[in-house]
């Protein structure tokens, strides 16, 4: 590993007066000073600052496009800043590569895990950081000991493909700890976690901070910030709008206000309408998951015209499989799926779309969109058959359709012939949701439609779904964000172990009761109703 580079001409040294301010004269563990980073047409960081003290958990907050990821990539050596300085423990560094940053003690846990599925936990942890041939047992016990020290429950000898998302994330954290990262940067670590796993992660982060390490935590979820973190820095438009706020002295409302630059949007519950006929009916549905285990077990459900039915549950209880089965992307073992009164259990995805089923899949870039294709190609993914002239695709007609879609749903995009890979997460989702809604579907299945989006993106997508409901569509919405479901849903169903275990009225439901139902407690102290009869025969 390279030695830390002393600054050449930019000045700045361990004794630079600006780096003071830490308790007991100790320089901050991380200091980013006046960081500028420009990309063609975009200024991602415009003089951003960050100062994090050793032994603290520090949140970096901001909407999509606020420059959080760019700033963290500067800190972890992925990008070099155009201007500005990175100081670790008061020493200025010029990282060329992530390896340089790691050598200085900065380890990043990316949103997408970088693990070898067929390797064991221990093998993944030591991969590339273990020069000699070592005995497997020794490595496993060393990794086990490290995991235990930080309260990261894991089994070192299990192959990674066996693990849940939460467990995989622990392996990523272990990788950074194994490489002796003193400063851990976690990019939206809770996006892939269940609420329970997120809480566990919070405890682990605290543990690491108590151990004298420094944790930087990027998140959209305000309650996690207030729950896990000591301080928060808020970015907006590439600038630091609030630096090192003490979390104890602030609250979610203030933080949300700083993020969006105005007082937070108060989402009133849109008024419900009387539900009409059942447009989506699922009866006795059984499906297997990818590993061939039962994912849905005799599931019944009905969604009526003009209502949003929310599905709550801890991730991995069959929500994903339910959405896929309705969309025609997962084979059905037994049971039936009726769309607009017709049995469509064995229909192809294209037939179901023609019947008026819009599907917003959980995995946007892997399923809902084709990342290497252009904006236009993606806009006509469902309807390219309508832009045909003989065997040819009518480029003008497809582009026209795409232009309409982009305008109507406010997708901010470059040239329509360019691959969609350049679009931000929020715009990708607008394109995808717009494409599914533009034809006026009768039934919409939306799986995690707002996950990972910024406040305005969330609002835009939610408004679209509500408008569609008001137009008479039946909407089934799967979300891990209970607040979102309580705000939008007309009825709330809770899934556990492949069944609907309870139904709540979001207007009156108690969170505690919903939580109990989510973890499968049989005698729930809310107003759950026996699901099968009420949902299917309503």
């Amino acid at each position, binding site marked *: *590993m*390279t*030695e830390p580079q002393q600054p050449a001409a930019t000045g700045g040294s361990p004794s630079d007066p600006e780096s003071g301010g830490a308790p007991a004269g100790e320089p901050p563990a991380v200091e980013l000073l006046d960081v500028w980073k420009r*990309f*063609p047409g975009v200024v991602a960081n415009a003089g951003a600052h960050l100062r994090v003290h050793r032994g603290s958990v520090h949140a970096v907050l901001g909407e999509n496009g606020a420059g959080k990821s760019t700033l963290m990539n500067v800190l972890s050596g992925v*990008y070099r800043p155009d201007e500005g300085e990175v100081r670790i423990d008061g020493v200025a560094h010029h990282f*060329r*590569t*992530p*390896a340089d940053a790691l050598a200085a003690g900065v380890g990043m846990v990316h949103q997408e895990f970088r693990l070898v599925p067929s390797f064991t936990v221990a093998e993944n942890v030591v991969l590339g950081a273990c020069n000699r041939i070592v005995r497997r047992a020794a490595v496993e016990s060393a990794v086990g000991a490290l995991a235990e020290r930080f309260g990261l429950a894991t089994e070192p000898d299990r192959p990674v493909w066996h693990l849940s998302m939460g467990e995989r994330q622990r392996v990523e954290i272990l990788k950074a700890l194994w490489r002796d990262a003193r400063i851990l940067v976690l990019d939206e670590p809770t996006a892939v976690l269940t609420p329970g796993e997120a809480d566990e992660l919070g405890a682990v982060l605290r543990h690491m901070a108590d151990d004298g390490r420094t944790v930087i935590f990027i998140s959209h979820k305000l309650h996690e910030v207030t729950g896990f973190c000591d301080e928060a820095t808020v970015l907006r438009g590439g600038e630091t709008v609030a630096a090192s706020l003490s979390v104890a002295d602030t609250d979610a409302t203030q933080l949300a206000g700083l993020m969006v630059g105005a007082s937070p949007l108060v989402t009133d519950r849109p008024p419900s309408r009387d539900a009409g006929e059942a447009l989506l009916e699922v009866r006795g549905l059984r499906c297997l998951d990818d590993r061939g285990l039962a994912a849905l077990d005799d599931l019944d459900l009905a969604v009526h015209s003009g209502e949003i039915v929310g599905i709550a549950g801890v991730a991995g209880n069959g929500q994903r499989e339910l959405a896929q089965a309705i*969309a025609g*992307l997962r084979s059905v073992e037994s049971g039936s799926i009726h769309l607009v009164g017709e049995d469509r259990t064995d229909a*192809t*995805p*294209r*037939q179901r*779309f023609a019947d008026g089923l819009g*599907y917003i*899949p959980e*995995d946007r*870039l*892997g*399923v*809902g*969109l*084709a*990342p*290497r*294709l252009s904006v236009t*190609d993606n806009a006509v*993914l*469902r309807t*390219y*058959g309508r832009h*045909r002239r003989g*065997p*040819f*695709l009518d*480029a003008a007609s497809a582009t026209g359709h795409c232009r309409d879609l982009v305008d109507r749903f406010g997708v901010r995009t470059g040239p329509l012939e360019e691959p969609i890979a350049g679009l931000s997460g929020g715009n990708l989702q607008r394109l995808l949701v717009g494409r599914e809604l533009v034809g006026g579907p009768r039934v919409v299945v939306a799986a995690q439609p707002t996950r990972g989006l910024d406040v305005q993106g969330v609002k835009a997508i939610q408004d679209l779904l509500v408008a569609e409901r008001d137009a008479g569509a039946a909407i089934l919405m799967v979300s891990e964000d209970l607040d979102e479901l309580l705000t939008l849903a007309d009825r709330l169903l809770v899934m556990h172990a492949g069944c609907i275990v309870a139904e709540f009225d979001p207007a009156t439901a108690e969170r505690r009761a919903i939580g109990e139902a989510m973890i499968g407690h049989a005698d729930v102290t809310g107003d759950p109703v026996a699901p099968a009869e009420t949902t299917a025969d309503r």
Partner: protein
Amino acid sequence: MSRPVLVRREQVLRGGQPLAFGIGLAVALVVGVLLLVGSGHDPLRVYERMFEASLGDPRAWSVTLNRAVPLGLAGLAVAVAGSMGLWNIGAEGQIMAGAIGAAWVARIGGDWPSPVVITAMLAAAILGGGLLALGPAIARARIGVNEIITTLMLNEVAIRLVQWLIHGRWKDPDSHNFPLAPMLSDNARLPGLFERAHVGVVLAAVVIVLFGVAASRTAWGYELRVAGSSGATARYAGISLERKILTVLVLSGGVAGFAGGIELSGTSDRITENLSNGFGFAGIIVAALALMRPSGVAAVALLFGAVQIGGQSIQTMGVSSSVSTILQALILFGAIAAGVLSRYRVEMVAGDTTGAIR
């Protein structure tokens, strides 16, 4: 102590594949100079001779074009599969299978009118190549068997099949017991175009253009692009991945078979076990350099054809024909290196650990 490391560029350099290809060619020619000087030849004279023999006059062009035909069609065959993320490594064998089909028609159609027999030969060639690819296609589409292995292994089968035929049933009774198939009759030979060039040049160009149009302008090509981008997205869009894999691999085999038919009818006197001449494998390089695009395939095939013909011509100067093979390989290396350097830059850093791509 400083060492070079590759550092990822934040933005990929613009200029693209033609530039990378040009750099590859330049690198190949420079290294070729070293090789030629090392083996005691005057590199300028050798290069001049190569150029004259391949692109110097209409006759040279005609020979180069004839050579570009099988290269281009084999490259197209690989590119058709490659546009969906499939690798057809079996073009070599499919060329042979196509030639077998064409030769069979030529045997039974000895007294048919020329246009009829040639059309039937080419159709049989497409069928033969497609048939050889059918097994791998079904195995891949139905149960996910890796098509790289199956298509590669079938090359051997096709070549043995030709050997079996020319040692046995198809052996020319007048060949004094040499394992040779009889010469093609005149009605089974492709008409000429100019100098040595035959109409196969036009046919190949038409096929490449047709695929280019189909890939970029038709609904079929669109489905192919979606399936190549993400299989899950294709399923979501209602595109049958199974059927797409099946048709694309069989089509790919058919295109390679077509090359075999043209090669037999246009440039070879008879079917031999050397007819495919490495075109199928060269086609993989052609397709890779062309980034799996039909338009690029034509350009790269023409250049490779010129290098091959030029390489043959310098044998009379005492230079081994391996020089041309080495040049082709160097072009590929140079182009790949240029591709890497468009994404990474080289930096010297102080340090003592081993160099690595970061």
